[in-house]
């Protein structure tokens, strides 16, 4: 059963075999496996359930209700920027572009070499987990029928630069190409984890789901986790309602990179060597907005249908991109009448986004207001590498006829019209603060490692020093995954929860 706020105003107090905190990609997979194994499983989610009929194309209003901090969460540090994380049943899988890529072998090798993860990642169960996840989420390459001109122009630009590229594999069945994944899939075609994992088991099966119930702390007795507690919150008024408590001998934390460490630390759990929340990583990002002579109608076609993994710069990925105009144009161009005039150009636009693994470090702390305070330090050389990739993309767009290209970099020309002008991107003088970044891929705030000095989580996903307490989200990653993290989060969650439930691989 899925309980909404209308059932929960007075709070609740329940017993279970296992409680999973957070219903995003990691939590949903873990909860489904535990429930399917016959354990009485409770899934608690901070946000509300959102169905297609609850969605609105008004992006600010949608985000106000279904994103953490209303979509206005800021990450501080070298390049302050937003982190857009879903706060609803299904978590960010409801609002992302559903790109599903396997963990590259070289990243797997690096994680094994650096953190001794061989027993976890070299186990054939890890590869089988990807297979299971891909099958359940109906992952398939984006069909050409819904590419739209915008994605095809990115294909042409990447081809122009000699980059091998292809349709991005996504967890969408029969995508209609609305180009607006960020306000949820109004057509109900995205196979977000609420749809692929939670709802079938909760409506017709053994999983008990409590929405609008942000967990504040893990309950412990001695060295053992015995449950979780918090207060129900009205998703419309944001007012705290009744208290809740779930008692369970197994607690799985999957509240995301920001909230998992925050809840653990608020519960007095700091992990081996105080590492919980003390490590944070993220992909660095950049983008470019190209204006073509032709009418592109960028709002037609899959949000992120085409991409490439750079063969020259390890850890760099190119993706086509679109979002609601109210988001894509927030920083674009001038103000006043010149900007209103430029809006006429939008139908000629295509956008490329770059994601680079880099060597970002950071941490999660508790802000004075009680929420997470995220900071990231981005080395200059990461930005220089990113700029090399951006120049390739900009030159590719110019090569296929872009009238001009606006990079997401301040202090350089905002209308690049030639390869000579794009050379300013690789002058070596661009600093992290100049690049407008969005941090939607963050990791590593509770790292898994064979070495307790490097990570507070052991190879079973268990928090060292607290029996019965596990982590199952992107917090586990030792470093960046170099590709969109959702599939790896789900595969790790699958392996960890199947071991927990003794389901076998």
């Amino acid at each position, binding site marked *: 059963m899925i309980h909404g706020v209308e059932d929960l105003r007075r709070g609740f107090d329940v017993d279970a075999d296992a409680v999973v905190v957070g219903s995003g990609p990691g939590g949903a997979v873990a909860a489904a496996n535990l429930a399917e194994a016959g354990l009485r499983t409770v899934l608690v989610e901070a946000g509300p359930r959102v169905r*297609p*009929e*609850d*969605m*609105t*194309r*008004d*992006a*600010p*209003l*949608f985000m*106000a*209700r279904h994103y953490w*901090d*209303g979509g*206005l*969460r800021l990450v501080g540090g070298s390049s*302050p920027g937003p982190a857009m994380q879903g706060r609803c049943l299904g978590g960010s899988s409801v609002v992302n572009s559903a790109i599903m890529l396997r963990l590259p072998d070289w990243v797997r090798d690096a994680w094994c070499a650096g953190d001794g993860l061989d027993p976890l990642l070299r186990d054939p169960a890890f590869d089988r987990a990807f297979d299971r996840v891909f099958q359940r989420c109906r992952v398939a390459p984006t069909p050409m029928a819904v590419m*739209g001109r915008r994605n095809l122009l990115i294909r042409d630009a990447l081809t122009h630069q000699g980059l091998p590229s292809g349709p991005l594999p996504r967890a969408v069945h029969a995508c*209609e*190409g*609305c*180009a*607006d994944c960020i306000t949820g899939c*109004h*057509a*109900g075609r995205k196979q977000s984890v609420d749809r692929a994992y939670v709802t079938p088991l909760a409506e017709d099966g053994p999983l008990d789901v409590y929405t609008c119930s942000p967990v504040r702390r893990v309950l412990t007795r001695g060295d053992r986790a015995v449950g979780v507690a918090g207060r129900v919150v*009205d998703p*419309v*008024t*944001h007012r705290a309602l009744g208290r809740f408590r779930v008692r369970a001998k197994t607690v799985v934390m999957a509240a995301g990179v920001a909230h998992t460490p925050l809840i653990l630390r608020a519960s007095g759990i700091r992990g081996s060597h105080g590492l919980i929340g003390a490590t944070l990583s993220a992909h660095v990002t950049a983008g470019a907005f190209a204006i073509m002579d032709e*009418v592109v*109608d960028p*709002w*037609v*076609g899959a949000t992120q249908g085409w991409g490439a993994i750079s063969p020259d710069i390890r850890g760099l990925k190119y993706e086509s991109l679109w979002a*609601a*105009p*109210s*988001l894509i*144009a*927030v*920083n674009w161009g*001038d*103000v*006043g*009448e010149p*900007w*209103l*005039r430029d*809006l*006429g150009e*939008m*139908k000629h636009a295509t956008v490329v986004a770059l994601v680079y693994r880099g060597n970002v470090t950071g941490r999660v702390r508790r802000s004075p*207001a009680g*929420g997470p305070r995220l900071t990231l330090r981005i080395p200059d050389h990461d930005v220089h590498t990113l700029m090399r990739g951006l120049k390739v993309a900009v030159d590719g767009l110019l090569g296929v006829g872009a009238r001009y290209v606006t990079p997401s970099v301040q202090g350089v020309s905002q209308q690049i019209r030639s390869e000579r002008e794009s050379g300013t991107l690789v002058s070596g003088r661009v600093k992290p*603060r100049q690049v407008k970044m969005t941090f939607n891929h963050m990791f590593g705030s509770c790292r898994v490692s064979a070495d307790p000095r490097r990570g507070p989580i052991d190879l079973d996903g268990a928090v060292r020093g607290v029996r019965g307490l596990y982590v199952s989200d992107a917090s586990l990653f030792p470093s960046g995954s170099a590709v969109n993290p959702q599939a790896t989060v789900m595969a790790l969650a699958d392996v960890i929860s199947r071991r927990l439930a003794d389901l076998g691989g």
Partner: protein
Amino acid sequence: MASPGPLSLTRVALRGFAAAAEALYPENDLGAPDWRDTEMVARAERWFVALPPKPRALLLALFSGLELGTPLLGRRWRAFSRLPVLERTALVRRWRASSIAPLKLLGDSIKSATSMIYLSHPAALRHVGQLKACDHVAPDLGVPVDPAALSSEETS
């Protein structure tokens, strides 16, 4: 929703927002809808109400700071809303281009927040030429909001 008093933070912030909206999305001969056509102030109020308390407080602080802080930030001895429209536009443009990080953040935040509201109105989307690629478009403004959510923040 109870009408906010003339000195309330919400009222001051909405005055600042309206002044910015008028400056950044002015009446024009380009065929683009202006700030009134896109109901920016009413929709901003609805957005503020829908936001969780922390980002709501930040936005209210941003726009009330804009309204009341112009003497300090822009060296103009009047409230932002009392400045001529073109002067307001020029101020925001200058802040966005500033090398002083807090001023730049102020300018970019004003531009971002107001652009989000402007460009999520159907008239603005029609103007930019957005097509309906999907038949499953939900009704506009389908998110329920609590009309009393701001009432506890009134100061008068």
